[in-house]
């Protein structure tokens, strides 16, 4: 390989390595010991309160669903969770948060026109996908700004 072509290729190799590190390296976040967590979620058209639940991987999570106006449900993407309750009643369920990531809470009972968009969020551990994606965005920025060799 000539000196010029090495100069041309080296920055791209470094960026490729950087992208691989961003994708594969574990995030520098200390793992917390699993514990029991309990959330009472009040549901009303078309909101959960609280709408964002943050837990650590391995936590035993108990959710109490308490509809305030009409019948509501609560399911969580990628978790076997599905609760339904009438107004004035409380439905609860306990599960282990063993899948890290960010998952949508969704109302599983038709509760009005905006029902398909009644969502919340369960965050298990740090939002790894977001941080890695932001890292890759910066790598893409660096790649776009690299000097061009002719």
């Amino acid at each position: 390989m000539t000196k010029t072509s090495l100069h041309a290729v080296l920055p791209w190799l470094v960026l490729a390595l950087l992208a691989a590190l961003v994708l594969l390296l574990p995030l520098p976040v200390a793992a917390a010991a699993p514990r029991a967590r309990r959330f009472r979620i009040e549901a009303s058209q078309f909101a959960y309160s609280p709408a964002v639940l943050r837990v650590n991987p391995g936590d035993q999570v108990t959710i109490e669903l308490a509809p305030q106006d009409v019948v509501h449900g609560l399911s969580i993407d990628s978790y076997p969770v599905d609760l339904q309750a009438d107004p004035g009643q409380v439905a609860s369920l306990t599960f282990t948060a063993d899948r890290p990531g960010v998952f949508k809470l969704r109302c599983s009972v038709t509760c009005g026109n905006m029902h398909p968009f009644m969502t919340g969020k369960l965050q298990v551990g740090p939002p790894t996908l977001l941080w890695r994606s932001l890292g890759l965005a910066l790598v893409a920025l660096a790649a776009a700004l690299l000097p061009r060799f002719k």
Partner: protein
Amino acid sequence: MKGVAEFDLAMRSADARRGWRARRFDLAALPWLRPFIESRWPLFVTRSLALAGLVFTILAGLLGPRVGSHNFAIILVWIAWWTALKLVFIPLGGRSWCSVCPLPMPGEWLQQGNLLGGLQKPHGLGLRWPKKLRGAWLQSGAFLLIGLFSAVTLTDGRVTAWVLLALILASVGLSLVFERRAFCRYVCPIGGFTGPYARFAPVEVRVKSSSVCAAHSEKTCYQACPWGQYPLAMRDSAQCGLCMECLRACPSDNIALSLRPFGSDLGAAHQPRGLDEAFLALVMLGSALAFSAVFTGPWGWLKSAAYQVGSLPWLGYSAGFLALNLLLLPGLFAAAAWLHRRLSGSPAQLGKIFAQQAQALYPLGLFTWMAFTVSFAFPKFYLVAEMLADPLGLGWELPGLAALDFGWLQQVGPGLQAAILLAGLAISLRLARQLAQASVTNRSPVLAALPVSLFCVVYTGWVLWMLVG
């Protein structure tokens, strides 16, 4: 007809693209495909079926269940069709949807006075579209209007039906007053959405040889084009509806329907761009951001505000939506364009730079809409299956449809959204660099590209936070 100066410019620009055919594949040259392109029947049959579907959808919207997730019109239009438009029609076919869109058909038939004959003896007043209303300003306004009422339109079958009826009536009225497809070119909000992003798609209609066109004085292609396009002068595919009337009218077989590399229309710094196009690109970015917040975010108060049309919260939502689209994003991008001007040393006016640099926003906008669609529609595909199993809401359970499992879509969704967004960002950053490279003389293109690139990165970060954070 285009002026002589524009004709000369087109000639030079066409000749400047020497070797373009080396990177193009002419689909119209395929012997087995050619008859389907030349004949009007395939598009006519497809559009007629789409028109029948549209009539059924409007009736279902008006007469079907009030709850959106149980209404055929809502599921078909806002989940099935909207998903197909953003994930298939636009990225792979540009304005291909426009070639089969049923909305302008009744108006077009009345204007033509026939179903299949093309633009021979147009009926109606045949006025030219007013100069002051040309460009993408009206379409930006129409898209903003839809954004203000989006929560109701997307969830109430009656509202969806009335919007579709209004679009049909508008197209009929405009077809009888103005020439050609004035509605599609200047008013239709869907056209406003598909047109700009058609520049990215890998399909184009262009002339094969500019000299053949120069020797042809009748310009039958221009006379036949319902979109008012002169193929030789087309600088991009934003206003080409892929109807292929030019190919049918050309006596010299000089029109090609080509596959091309993605993004072929973008990145040319020397071509004039309008502020209206730049503004539309920013409205598309702002609307994608607002829709992501309303429809996929966890903020219940925002959903309620967007839904309660006419209430005080809705006025607040409207003010925020308009401020985002008319002030915040244009302001930030104007700042980026100003910095670019300073860093590149370009003598061009700020408005011109603003319009030129906005080209970099098209891939970002298109890919953001695609990522939003994955987030918005994928978790609701089970509704499409339920609708197909019982399209009239009569309690049917057509076998095998309602039981389809779409759970896996929810699992791949976030990763797919992030990948789509990053792909769009990468393409936009490349374009920003390309545009900067072309605009600097003795300055660093890296520094000149930085402001628009940072705008793109910050916007992407914002959307990532909303969709996968």
